[in-house]
């Protein structure tokens, strides 16, 4: 008589069953490829001095088109968390003091910088490109953004980050992004009781969280088990879950919570540093690689004309919206043009909006490809034009004393020491 072991018995001899083992093997292979691409992106980014996010998108697009890279479910989860935490950090990097000084100008320029491109690109997508109303709304949102990070790097290199002009531009960028996030969060929501619950809970969170958080942080303190970071993640996911029930978007409460917690983060730089490290290492690489992998080169080639037109419409809309206001606030033509071009840049919220549209079936992959390509070009082209032809003359050289140059975040350590000199803001008002 032949004895055959029962499957259950033989399975018990291993850590995983055969099927489970196969799955694990696949997971590790997938992790290996994505991690390799993330590492490659980091190395390229360091070598060429271009942001790792942009390189990840480009590497992801090569992976998607040449290697057939696609996101598994668990990668989608990591990518979604990455976009939410990245949005939270974007809100938390605001210095409220910058707003207080020039709130009127910031508010006007920032709001118009959102509204005119939103309406302009949406109208173009709907009436000229004949996209569906929903796809046109996504186009409007994705191309209304301004990249605070792109603008900040340019201002630092030009020595404008400490000037009134630089601070005004930065705070206006935050307002523009706020407009984008609010519209993305509310335009596609279901207007039912869940939205009401979402609005009430977000409102309550915005009121209580800034009051509770310092108290909680004081009690739990900094620890290797990261209770502070977990508390932040808990808040983001709780509000994200309610946002999803209302068919809204988790990035809306994330940005708002970031804004109200900005003073806490200004006071606690190590927490900001730890959250960034976690996000840039484990979350955003999956998000940006995925965003790139979904770009289809065939659609990009076929839609090259539309890509150029949408980029032109975005920049033109920013010009019609922002440039007259710079005159009203007496910037002068050169600085006005410089400001307008910098406010035409976009990256993070543009890709977040496009990915939202694709994942919710509001746009197809061709439209996604076109929008993300325009977003990438809008990060690069207006910056190059601004730097090459419209950089204000005799840029003030402000020294990199971190306490001053990081006025936006008010964070990090000071470079002061010995006889280090710090130039005063020479102002370019």
């Amino acid at each position: 008589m032949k004895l055959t072991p029962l499957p259950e018995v033989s399975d018990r001899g291993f850590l995983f069953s055969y099927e489970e083992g196969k799955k694990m093997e696949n997971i590790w292979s997938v992790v290996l490829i994505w991690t390799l691409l993330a590492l490659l992106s980091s190395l390229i980014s360091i070598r060429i001095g271009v942001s790792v996010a942009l390189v990840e998108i480009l590497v992801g697009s090569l992976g998607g088109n040449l290697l057939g890279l696609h996101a598994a479910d668990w990668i989608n989860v990591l990518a979604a968390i990455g976009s939410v935490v990245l949005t939270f950090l974007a809100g938390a990097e605001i210095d409220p003091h910058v707003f207080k000084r020039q709130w009127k100008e910031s508010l006007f320029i920032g709001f118009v910088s959102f509204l005119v491109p939103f309406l302009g690109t949406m109208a173009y997508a709907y009436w000229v490109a004949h996209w569906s109303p929903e796809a046109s709304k996504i186009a409007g949102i994705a191309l209304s953004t301004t990249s605070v990070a792109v603008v900040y790097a340019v201002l630092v290199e030009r020595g404008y980050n400490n000037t009134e002009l630089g601070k005004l531009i930065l705070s206006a960028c935050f307002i523009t992004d706020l407009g984008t996030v609010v519209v993305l969060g509310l335009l596609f929501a279901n207007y039912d009781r869940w939205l009401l619950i979402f609005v009430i809970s977000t409102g309550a969170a915005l009121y209580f969280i800034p009051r509770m958080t310092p108290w909680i942080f004081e009690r739990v303190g900094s620890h290797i088990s990261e209770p502070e970071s977990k508390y932040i993640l808990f808040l983001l996911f709780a509000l994200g879950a309610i946002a999803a029930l209302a068919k809204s978007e988790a990035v809306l409460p994330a940005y708002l919570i970031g804004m109200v917690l900005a003073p806490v983060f200004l006071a606690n730089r190590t927490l900001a540093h730890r959250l960034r490290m976690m996000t840039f290492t484990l979350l955003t690489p999956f998000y940006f690689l995925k965003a790139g992998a979904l770009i289809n080169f065939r659609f990009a080639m076929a839609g090259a004309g539309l890509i150029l037109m949408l980029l032109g419409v975005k920049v033109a809309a920013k010009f019609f919206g922002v440039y007259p206001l710079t005159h009203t606030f007496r910037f002068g033509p050169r600085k006005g043009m410089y400001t307008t071009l910098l406010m035409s840049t976009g990256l993070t919220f543009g890709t977040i909006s496009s990915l939202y549209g694709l994942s919710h079936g509001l746009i197809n992959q061709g439209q996604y490809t076109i929008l993300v390509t325009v977003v990438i070009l809008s990060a690069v082209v207006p910056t190059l034009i601004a730097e090459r032809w419209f950089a204000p003359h005799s840029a003030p050289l402000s020294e990199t004393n971190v306490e001053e140059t990081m006025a936006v975040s008010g964070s990090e350590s000071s470079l002061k020491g010995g006889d280090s000199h710090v130039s005063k803001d020479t102002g370019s008002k």
Partner: protein
Amino acid sequence: MFRKILAANDGSEGARKALIAAIDLAKKYRAELHSISVEEHLPHYAASLGEVLEAQSEANDYFKKKNEEAMALALKEGLSLHTHVLAGHEVGTIIQFAKDNHFDLLVIGFMGHSKIFGRIWGSTSHNLTRLSPCTVLVVK
């Protein structure tokens, strides 16, 4: 002859040699001695402000260490070194700083680039020598 001397310090071995020469000249001419370091590797087209802030912070930590070493070197010769760290393009920033602060002498290290790069773009030391508003000493 020289009242204000500026040494370019990127933390390299070449820059160290330039600093030693600058200290020697400052001592000889009883000149005011400054050094400048330029952060030129801030990430372009960043997706988050944090990425730029972290890069800036890393660069600052690096230059803080290098400037402390430079100040100790000057102090050994009885001199006070005024250090400056700025962000921007290396050549443009040093030239603008030298112009704005009326330096008499710019002391730089000879920085070797690849031959192809050097032929097409010109090396940093070549460009600094060409564009500087004051006398330039290239230390090899």
